[in-house]
């Protein structure tokens, strides 16, 4: 999946699920979704589920914070990184997350 497909999937979901009726051009890819009040604790959890279902990734316990979930641009970069890492894991270049996951 290329970055534009990832971006479109995220944008479409945000507009349909969290901003119904909003004009797409009003949703900037640089808008801070947390500071704008679009992502609260429940909508963040919903977004995590959408990303995991659509991109076959697992969002780690400490990966849904301000670093990755601030803007659409950051989300796209995060998902790209997760997909790339998954491919490398499958290719045997990285250990499987279950082997290096932090407990607790």
């Amino acid at each position, binding site marked *: 999946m290329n970055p534009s497909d990832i971006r479109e999937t995220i944008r479409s979901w945000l507009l349909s699920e969290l901003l119904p009726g909003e004009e797409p051009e009003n949703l900037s890819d640089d808008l801070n979704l*947390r500071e704008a009040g679009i*992502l*609260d*604790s*429940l*909508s*963040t*959890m*919903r977004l*995590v*589920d959408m990303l*995991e*279902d659509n991109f076959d990734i*697992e*969002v*780690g*316990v*400490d990966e*849904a*914070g*301000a670093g990755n*979930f601030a803007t659409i641009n950051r989300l796209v970069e995060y998902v790209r990184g997760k997909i790339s890492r998954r491919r490398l894991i499958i290719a045997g270049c990285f250990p499987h997350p279950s082997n290096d996951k*932090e*407990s*607790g």
Partner: protein
Amino acid sequence: MIPAGIQAIASYLPRGLRTNAFWQADTATMTSACGLVHQDRSRRPFDGEMRPYLSDPFFGAVQRRVATAEESSVSMGLAAARLVLQTAGLEPADVDCLIAVSMFPDRVGCGDAAFLARQLGHWGGAFNLEATCAGSVSALLVACGLVSAGLRSRVLVVITALLSRALEATAIDSRVCGDAAAAFLVGSTQPGSGILGAHTLHTGNTCGTWLLDAVPSSSGADDGQKIRLRADPSIAHVLRSSAEPALRGTALAAVEAARVSLEDIAFFVFNSATAWHTASSAHALGVDPAKTLDTFPRYGNIGPALMPVIAHTAAMEGRLRSDDLVLLYGFGGQAEAVAVVLRWGDVALGPPPDSPTQIDGCPI
């Protein structure tokens, strides 16, 4: 090593009752989250029990007790401390250490220990222990360690959860949280009873989920400032992801340290911070839910007071008996998860909590 455990326990519930009607005017605009979370519970085991509550603006909460204007962290802790001493037939002079767990104290920057000791007329040492919502279980471990090592003979642990003043009433979290206090006495026990094993794990992967700052306050008990507690948007994801590994990681190790098996445990005191935590915890460990007690419908999330209030309530209701092996569990965000296995023993029980005198701010 001197065997050590809980000798007496009591709870104090504040005099205010807050029902969901308190927020009635806001219900139409309240956030809920219907139609989400994975159907596949293998990814996050707690999701299965959580899902039914997400369409409810109150997430399964029904009522909670909250401090009235006349009550404070110190006054609630003091009431619980006096109850437990009275229950045990002891005087403050019979205690040589006081540990206070306050979430949150009446002032910024200093806990309640010395304030409680002074008003109680206690002359021994007093210090504060901070492990967020795990504080009561962490304090139990510390107190038992002091007694077991022969450094103290009897330790009074006082726990206060005063969340209603730290959380803004408009915050989602305030709908599920309440206030409570509890106290227990730790001393020497018969060989074979008291603490048999324990395990702790830090919860560093939850750091950044709870945001604390100091803001002006007009309560009168707090020198013009109070701690404000807010949640980062990542909190629901972080807590659902960390709950199961933290519970299994500590509980299974504590059971092993106690040289027993989960099947030997007669009662489980879980961290009932939400409407689904008790059932989720029982499911995660594969234990019978009949061996648990969920106080969430009565009191909501009462933070560090959960463990002593649940244990006290279960013992009063005859669910937790003297010969029982019990597993006590606490989960503190940005602190640690703690599991303790102990044989309950002949614990003196404080009286049932008084009825509230106010409902949603109006006198009854």
